[in-house]
Every structure is written in C-alpha cells, then in structure tokens.
C-alpha cells in the first residue's frame, strides 16, 4: 500500500505541508480565505532544530498500537489506512499514549485527529505530498 514517507535530507522546513494539510482539513475553496488569521492545527507537523527538519504524520503502521489501544473503536483500519471516527472518540488519548511517533494530536473539538492520507478528498495524493516543493514527503509503495 502507498504510504507517506519522509526524507529529512530534502526537508526545507518551509512548513508548506502543514499549511496544505490544514487547508485540506477545511472545506474551503480558497486557501487564503480559509487560513487567513487562523492558527493552523495540521495533522502533519514539522520538527525542526539546528538546520534539521522533517515532517511527522501517521505512519499507518501494520501493527497499529493506536487502533489496538483505542477504548471506543473510534480508530480503525480501512484498507490499510488508519482512520478516526471523531464521533466515537471520547478524548481519552490512549492513542496519544500509544503512538510511538507522536503522530496523533488533538483537534479543536477535543477528539483526536491524525493523517488519513486525504482519502476523503478526491486527490490522487495527500495534500502534504502534493504541496511539498522538494519531494521530502513522498507517497509511494515500498516494501
């Protein structure tokens, strides 16, 4: 299955991925209107220090501790993609406790949010990948 892979060698720390992710999470048509004056809360996040930077988002683990640990069944695996049903989430954050990558975060509603590979949009690749100017984030099949 295609996954998002990150290569910090090429990450510029420009944070475009965060903005594209944030925009993908809105239903807006115009990025400026959707994000103007908004403090973004993307599902992919850059870690940055001393000239090193890289993006972190859900790895869609084959053995997803978050799904296994979820107390409500809000997290599940659909065709390899770990998805969250925010209606079922009760904000216990067991998934945050379990995720070894720190890739699950809290949304404005309190329910958890995470990268779902933009499967809900019609795009052929996640917004972060499409928006990355340097192929530091790629979406591909690897063994």
């Amino acid at each position, binding site marked *: 299955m295609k996954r998002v892979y990150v290569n910090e060698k090429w990450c510029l720390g420009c944070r475009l991925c965060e903005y594209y992710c944030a925009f993908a999470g809105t239903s807006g048509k115009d990025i400026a209107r959707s994000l103007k004056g908004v403090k973004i809360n993307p599902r992919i996040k850059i870690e940055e220090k001393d000239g090193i930077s890289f993006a972190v988002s859900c790895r869609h683990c084959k053995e997803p501790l978050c799904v296994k640990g979820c107390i409500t*069944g809000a997290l599940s695996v659909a065709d390899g993609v770990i998805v969250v049903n925010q209606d079922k989430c*009760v904000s216990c954050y067991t998934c945050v406790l379990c995720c070894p990558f720190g890739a699950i975060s809290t949304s404005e509603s309190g329910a958890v949010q995470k990268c779902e590979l933009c499967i809900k949009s019609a795009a052929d690749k996640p917004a972060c990948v499409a928006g990355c100017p340097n192929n530091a984030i790629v979406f591909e099949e690897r063994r």
Partner: protein
Amino acid sequence: MKYVIIGNSTAGIGCVEGIRQIDKSGNIAIISDEPHHTYSRPLISYLVKGKVDAEQMKYRADSFYKDNDVTLLSGVRAVKINAGEKAVELSDGNSIAYDKLLVATGSRAFELPIAGNSFMTLDDARKLQSQLAPEKKVLIIGAGLIGLKCAEGILGRVASITVADLAPRVLASILDDGGAALVQKHFEERGVKFILSKSVSSTDGFDIVVIAAGVRPNTELLSGIAQIGKGIAINEKCETSNPDIYAAGDCTESIDVSSGQQKIMALLPNAYMQGECAGVNMAGGNKIFDKAIPMNAIGFMGLHIITAGNYTGEVYESNKNGTYKKLFYSDNKLNGYIFIGDIEKAGIYTSLIRDRTPLDSIDWALICEKPGLMAFTKEDRMLKLGGR
C-alpha cells in the same frame, strides 16, 4: 477448528480479530454472561455523564459477529472447563466443545462489607443512572481510576460527591503525590470532596454509595486447571500452563517489561493486544506479546493524564505552562513517566519504555524537554519516517 472464547469484551474481541487474521473459516463461539453487544467498559462513566449513548458504547460495529462469523452465546455463563474432554459447561446446562479456548473473563469489583453499587458494567452504569437525582448525596469509596471516572460521570447531576480512600492520595496506583494533588485540586475546584487516608466505617448521610475499591481478576474457571498467581499466569504467547487454553486481559498476570515484574496490568490496550496475540496463536500463527507495561491515558473534566511504566530511578521533573511532567529513569533506560496537562506526543516516551531504548542512543536532554523524533539518530528517523 473450534475456538471458544469466554468473555465478550476487549480481550475476547481482540482474540476474534487475531484468529481471523490467520483462519478465515474456523468456528468461533463467544460465551458472555452479559446480554449485550460487545461494548467498551471504560465508557460507562461517559454513558452516565450522557456524553455517549448506547450506540456509541458499542466497541465494534453491529455487524461484527456476522462479519467475523462468530456465534455469540450471550446471557450464558461458563460454569466449568472440562480440560480433559476439551469442553466448557454452560450455565444453561449445555456444553460446548473446543479445540482452542480463550479465557478472557476480566475482573470484578473488590467486595467490601458495605452495601453499594459497583461500577464495572453496563448494567451497573444503568442502575446508577436510574438512582441519580439532583438532591442525592453520593459517596464513592475508592479514589482510583474507576472511582474518579464515576465522580466525573455524575458530577453536576447530584447534590454532592464525596470520594473516600484508604490511600493518602487520589489515583494512588498511577500518580505520585504531586500529580495526585493536582488532580485532587482539579476535582475539588469543581465541588468534589475527598476523604483520604481513612477507611469508611459508615455510609450514613449518603443516598448513593458506589464501591470502587479495586478489582479482582476472575480466575476461578481455571482453578486447578492452570497455574494461577495474582491472576492467570500466561506466557508471551498468552498460553496458560494448560495446553490449548489461552488467557488474556484483566484476568491475567504477565511481565511488566518496565520493571521485569509479574503483574496484573488491567488496562484496555493490553487486553486487546493479549487477546489478539492469543487469537493468532490459537489459529496456528506465531505471535508474541512481550511488551506489556502499565500505562494509562485518562482525562477528568478537561485535565488529561498520561502515565506509563513504573516510577523508580532518577527523576526529571518539569512544570511548565500548567503541564506536570516527570520522567523516571535508571540504568540508561526510561522506567516510567507521568504527564498531566499538555500530553502531546507522549507516546514517544511510552515507546522508550516499551522498547527499552538505551537513553545514550538518543538526545536525552532534548527529549526530556519535549518528546520528539528529533532526539533520535538520523538513522533511526530514516527507519521510522523514511521506511528504510
């Protein structure tokens, strides 16, 4: 192949999903004395609070049993395991044969010589719900996870809530003094009263009593059949000492890798992973679950707490921006942590404990300050994020 699972909660469901990873066609029967679709036990306080409804309580979709071709025998109790004949005798007089058996009987509330509600099951929750009224005064015996979740659940729906515990602090099993004080204060600010370091001798003056003074594993079915310590003893394949009988979840005891001690770790993720592990192995697969550690993620009225491991060794402590954080470490390993408030990326700490990561292989100073993958080596990051 005939699989029988005693218990319809997390470990049992995990077992079904484990079996079906390997064996798509074998017969699976679940025996459950609760007459309900599988539901999430920790959600009962949310049900009482009204944050979730019966539908949302369901741990898996309505079609779960059908999708997984499972026969659910609900409202029936397993009364005896006949290991010689490989059959389970049921409370309705029937008997069901198995090739592989999982005991996932969970635990029950510790009984006190005091009358009161227990707060373990859906039925308990519904019963309590029916008793609630604005003028009622409630006494909760036990300031542990169940007691406090119960308190949160009924807060605002009754006249008063008093929580009593023998221990000197709340959440004694998962928090240190400082953390406990923070949580206690959080409750007290919302009107909950605490009586600590005292045993309850009388419930006079209270309309509703909830007993949440701890739990005991349901091990009786295997008594004399398999080795039992504090709970049913299982190995890393979730096998009991009796061949073809597996056990998983709150009824078991296993190795806590953070301390190396045999422990009951009655928590949902472990239950699921043990159940799944048992299921895979029951179906002829080969799976090991040897990374159990005590861990908890819990929140009370917007205050989030994440803890894991054990609290021994040296301590790194930081209290910044309303976040309470303690890391416990020794011998180049992280043993445990307590995180209250901003719990972002806590799982990275959990992974350090679970994986027994040598702390000198990462940027310890950096990760103390803030959990992040930046603290790992470039190669580790390549592996974690780059897939190679």
